[in-house]
């Protein structure tokens, strides 16, 4: 699942939790609240990532609890930097076995990750970082629009979603709306229907992140998550109340609005 602070596929993540999926390898450059929820609910046994935090707020408490205390289950890490993860997605999208970058000079990260190696440039001899291509089974992203044929339009901060879709064997896209005419501006970021496996219409499906042109980031919720997620029991109670007991994302949004959440506004 990708989305670089923008267009994060929250609705899809909630549904994975509702369906009680297990033993997943989760990949994301910036695991934030949605991965905190999935990790805390025991969906994942492995995490491939480059920065795990609640942006602008602080720690991800469920992520930390899983790593520090194996709660609710142990979480194996494969850790990179952003430049590396971006390069790995590009290699995957390009059908190449690895990517090259000038990375990790003096950093301890490669000591703990066998997907990071080095290669000598055949032309200059410079030793560069070589990093294994990323080829996920499935990419899940959120976008603004799709047309009825399944062409997808992404606007605003483009992040890494195009590369993630093209690197993956299958791609699921949730969208704010399905329209008759995409009306994509020239040079817009469009994923043609034939690289998209499924499209699902979920209005608001990136909340509490945002969909440029539709709604803003719910910074108040992102701050409130710090309190909700800090304690295991409070977290579990919140997840039961708002995710497991709701049948879909629209019901979750109603449940949130009726609750005592800050997000109620």
């Amino acid at each position: 699942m990708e989305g670089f602070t923008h267009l994060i596929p929250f609705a899809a993540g909630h549904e994975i939790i509702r369906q009680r999926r297990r033993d997943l390898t989760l990949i994301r450059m910036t695991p934030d609240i949605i991965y905190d929820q999935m990790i805390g609910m025991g969906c994942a046994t492995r995490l491939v990532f480059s920065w795990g935090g609640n942006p602008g707020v602080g720690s991800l408490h469920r992520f930390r609890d899983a790593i520090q205390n194996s709660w609710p289950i142990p979480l194996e890490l494969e850790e990179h930097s952003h430049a590396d993860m971006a390069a790995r997605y590009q290699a995957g999208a390009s059908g190449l076995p690895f990517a090259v970058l000038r990375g990790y000079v003096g950093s301890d990260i490669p000591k703990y990750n066998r997907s990071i190696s080095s290669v000598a440039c055949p032309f200059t001899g410079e030793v560069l970082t070589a990093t294994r291509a990323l080829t996920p089974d499935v990419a899940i992203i959120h976008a603004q629009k799709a047309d009825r044929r399944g062409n997808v339009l992404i606007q605003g901060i483009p992040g890494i979603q195009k590369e993630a879709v093209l690197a993956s064997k299958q791609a699921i896209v949730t969208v704010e709306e399905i329209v008759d005419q995409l009306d994509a501006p020239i040079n817009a970021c469009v994923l043609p229907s034939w690289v998209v496996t499924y499209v699902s219409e979920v209005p608001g499906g990136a909340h509490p992140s945002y969909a440029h042109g539709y709604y803003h980031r719910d910074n108040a919720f992102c701050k409130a998550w710090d309190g909700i997620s800090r304690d295991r029991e409070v977290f579990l109670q919140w997840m039961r109340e708002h995710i497991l007991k709701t049948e879909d994302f629209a019901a979750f949004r109603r449940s949130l609005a009726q609750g005592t959440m800050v997000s109620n506004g």
Partner: protein
Amino acid sequence: MAELDYTSIEIMTIAAARRLANGMVCFVGIGMPSAAANLARNIHAPEVVLIYESGTIGAKPSVLPLSIGDGELAETADCLVSVPELFRYWLQAGRVDVGFLGAAQIDKCGNINTTLIGGTYASPQVRLPGAGGASEIATASKEVWIILKQNKRTFVERLDFITSSGHQQGRRLAPRNGDTCNGRRLTRGRGPTIVITDLGVLTPDLATGEFTLSGIHPGVTVEQVRAATGWDLKVSPRLDTTPAPTGAELARLRDLHARTDAAHGSSMAER
């Protein structure tokens, strides 16, 4: 000492902002770097180019972003690029003048830890977020500025983990600008050139890479800074004192924070 009408965080932010020159290209970390960089843009450096790692180049936010990808950064940017483009064409190619970073811990050579504290890698006492963009920002920017609060937990003799490299002791790690490899120019920068804290300013000894105290904020003593440092801190014979914040600087900074709090306090997404 005279009663101060500003906080130590405020003078740290202002001391950092003053150093950012108009027109510089600055890769901005979230938090204190972002506050200082936007303060500079609001005061003396309207043309400073702020790059956030979400791919927003030339962002001009009216309030401080909570995340590096807030919508206002995208709306005010000169251009929006994808994450791989940002890290390849704009950072690794050497187009960034200043990589401006925060840190959880640093050592005397300006190495940064944002990965873990205590325990082992597999089982840390405290797990931190990790590198994000910092490990490449630290080596690909022409120079690196680090801003963080100074105490014995943040300024340590030995890091539990080196996430992003500074000047590693005993070997000059980052080639200087103009160094070549088989006749080709390398683009790696000078590494960390300044550490700005709530107590003062540290700059590296060019021979050893070790950071020494070269400036203190008004009302701070050298003993106080040494007591807040986990290594035997060397002090420059020419120690500067940071000029106190001006009324205008404080007013701009406080206004920026007030507008930021107002913008982020309310829920905007519920319809």
